[in-house]
């Protein structure tokens, strides 16, 4: 079936099978491999992207379901070669180690901060409950988001 999806500001039309998930569409059709698949069943959050500005887990959304909508992936966060303040904060505060959960963390952080520009530590932790990280113990991820909140003001 024909789908037309705006990804990182650019429109893509593709003929895809109904079974194709958004994550697969991004990775296989558009070669945007920054969106990762960790569990493939909405538990780990590595596949998180923004659809119409909201964080969602792309592993279990059909590409067809987002037909006509706007998707933002990790590849669309930096602009003109400048890291987004959230990306910058993750780098500055060592909010990543192996990097696999990182795109999902950054996209989730974007959602958290867009709804709540001044999150408390506990609001950030609650906001990250859909994203597993096995490397950082979340410590520096939470710190990164706290600092990103400051710099986004």
């Amino acid at each position, binding site marked *: 079936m024909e789908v037309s999806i705006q990804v990182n500001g650019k429109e893509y039309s593709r003929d895809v099978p109904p079974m194709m998930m958004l994550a697969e569409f991004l990775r296989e059709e558009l070669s945007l491999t*920054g969106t990762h698949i960790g569990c*493939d069943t909405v538990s780990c959050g590595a596949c998180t992207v923004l659809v119409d500005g909201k964080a969602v887990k792309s592993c279990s959304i059909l590409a067809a379901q987002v037909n006509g909508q706007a998707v933002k992936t990790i590849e669309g966060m930096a602009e003109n070669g400048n890291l987004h303040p959230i990306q910058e904060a993750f780098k500055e505060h060592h909010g990543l180690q192996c990097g696999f959960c990182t795109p999902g963390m950054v996209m989730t952080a974007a959602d958290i901060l867009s709804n709540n520009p001044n999150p408390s530590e506990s609001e950030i932790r609650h906001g990250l409950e859909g994203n597993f990280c096995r490397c950082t113990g979340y410590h520096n991820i939470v710190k990164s988001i706290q600092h990103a909140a400051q710099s986004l003001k």
Partner: protein
Amino acid sequence: MANQYIGQPVKRREDNRFLTGKGKYTDDLKLPGMTYAAFARSPYAHARIVAIDTSEAVRSPGVIAVYTGNDECGQFSVPCGWQVDFKNGETMKEPPHPLLAVGKVLHVGEDVAIVIADSLQQARDAAELVNVEYEELPVVTNARDAIKEGAPLVHEDAPRNMVYDWEIGNPKEEVDNAMASAHHITRLDFMNQRLAPNAIEPRCYIADYDVNADKYTLYTSTQNPHLIRLLMCAFALGIPEHKVRVVSHDVGGGFGSKIYHYTEEALLTWASKKIGRPIKWTSDRSEAFLTDAHGRDNCTLAEMGFDKEGNIVALRVKNEANLGAYLSTFSTCVPTYLHGTLAQGCYKTPLINIDVTAVFTNTNPVDAYRGAGRPEMTYILEHLMDTAALEMNMDPAELRFKNFIPPFDGVNQPGYQTQVALQYDSGNYHGTLRRALEMVGYEDFRRQQAEARKSGKLLGIGLSTYIEGCGIAPSAVVGSLGARAGLYEVGQVRVQPTGKVSVYTGAHSHGQGHETAFAQFVADKLGIPIEDVEIHHGDTEQVAFGMGTYGSRSLAVGGSAIVKSIEKIVDKGAKIAAHKLEAAAGDLEFKDGKYTVKGTEKSISFADVALTAYVPHDYPEGLEPGLDFSSFYDPANFTYPFGAHICVVEVDPDTGKIEIKRFVACDDVGNVINPMIVDGQIHGGVVQGIGQALLEGVSYNDDGQMITGSYMDYAMPRADDVPFIETDRTVTPCPHNPLGVKGAGEAGAIGATPALVNAVMDAISTHGVKRLQMPLTPERVWRALKN
């Protein structure tokens, strides 16, 4: 040489690619003509394969090939890398681990058939059509059950399912006698439960055979590409190493689970030649739970004897280690040489006996998982210490201070010879505990706790002071202990003609930040900007050789190999510089990136020396051109990081739920190259340790079905389960490696678990609770409080 970078929190150079979605994980690769594999796996824990019918799968659309254990690949087997013999000298039982099940399946999830198709969808659909007739056999999943007479046999030639029995330490009789005359004995009988490692990146392999070159390439999410190549070529498939390239770009976490040579790696490599096309397989999470080597799973009976004053007089441990259905690559050394040898802990214990029986069961293989053997032993020692303190009505900190080995730096004082074979390099256990007590405000807390108890609040504090053996390790030592490979590391430093430096290391980074930390010391040692240094790893055709990354060894062993090469470069550079400066090499000093004739202004920069080495028009006679050295570094000893972790908890008496109020860690990992990275390693390790204490545990039912095979059932720490981790460190350099570093990767996971469990036990000790089994689920805590 002035250190501009060493010791600084230099921001990671690898981060930009990860943060912008440009990491290169194996699953991100797509090769022309690539096919996809899916597996038919055993639904039974133990069964005879009566018949396999693949005809329907073969006919399914897009299917290129279907193989089973009846094909040639069934004759190949992945090896175990470490031989541990029985006490009586007999060789351990080492049944073959075929690439696909032959005749029998021994655990749920075992590979029975591989289906290769043009698309993943086609492969998956066809894998469902592989029709296998099974005859179920009796199942055993628990180590203690497995060694009972009459238990179902996993392998017919391993009586009582024993892989080996093994002991270390002082003669049993001496330990028994000391125990018999002890004033007090603290005894623990528990399970160190099985854990699923759960790197967030699932395992992924792409095998690509090039018929014209008769050459294989395996892209794999591994922690040690060279070791995979060695094991696969020399042991599994019998193919020549120079015809095999193993590539491991970015890897999304390992924690041990990606050290091992898995059957799927060899099988895909074999099959890619058969079908003449590249094949990709990416594990899904269910497969990861069922087949990524698990960790821990020991049944432990541990006893510690004390005299009247609280001095330890003896330690006796009896362990049954569950190794699963097959021997994974390093499985056999985990409950023995990585476990029994750490039984001295930080204490002067005069008599120690550790007795281990390793067994087969109808479960997924068990191998090293972050800490590997050392968390298990630390849990024994540290849980014994806090439990003993409660039982003897002593303060747990005091009890430790009383029993600590006195400080020794390994230079002015000799290393400490333990009762269990190892000699510690350097240590100051008083120092880390003192600092951790200060950080947590121990005495204040005890007052606060006494107040809280009056109002029925269950506050507790738990201590853990660990030591670990890292930087694995001297080849002669590990060889004598049964390792079937050397455990040195390789570091090549290639100075380019313009003075820029390419470094090739056999260590592998899957989150540890080698590209940054290694570049820091290389830049300092050569006196050049860090931007002039590039670190390469993860490709057997780029890096001469290597043993990979595990056991907190990268910097201590891999870093040291690089330092050796740098020394050779500096020496050779001195000859070139001497020629150019018309001075004697001995009169030169290498500092801040240039050679200077001592006491003069005459100097030549490192870059000019490099250029001269590659454009040797005016050059020392007899000296080879070029500036490129490779070194193998085989350390003199393991390294022994140590530390003190303290946890404060509050238990909800109504629900049994535990809240971690504070977690304090003071670690000593020797010298620190990048404190930001070291802290990060500690945070992550601590939270994995917390996971074991509170949440995680793989469970099989009596039929050998895993009942915790998804994230809906296997609980791992999420961001709101844990607090910030408060860290600090002391520095006791390693005396035997050039960087003085000890390793930080596993420390957190080793120290944290007992600290947390001890805190909970302290909190509920007022209710007379004596023992609790991990994970400390709310229900377990509630039940203990109720009884």
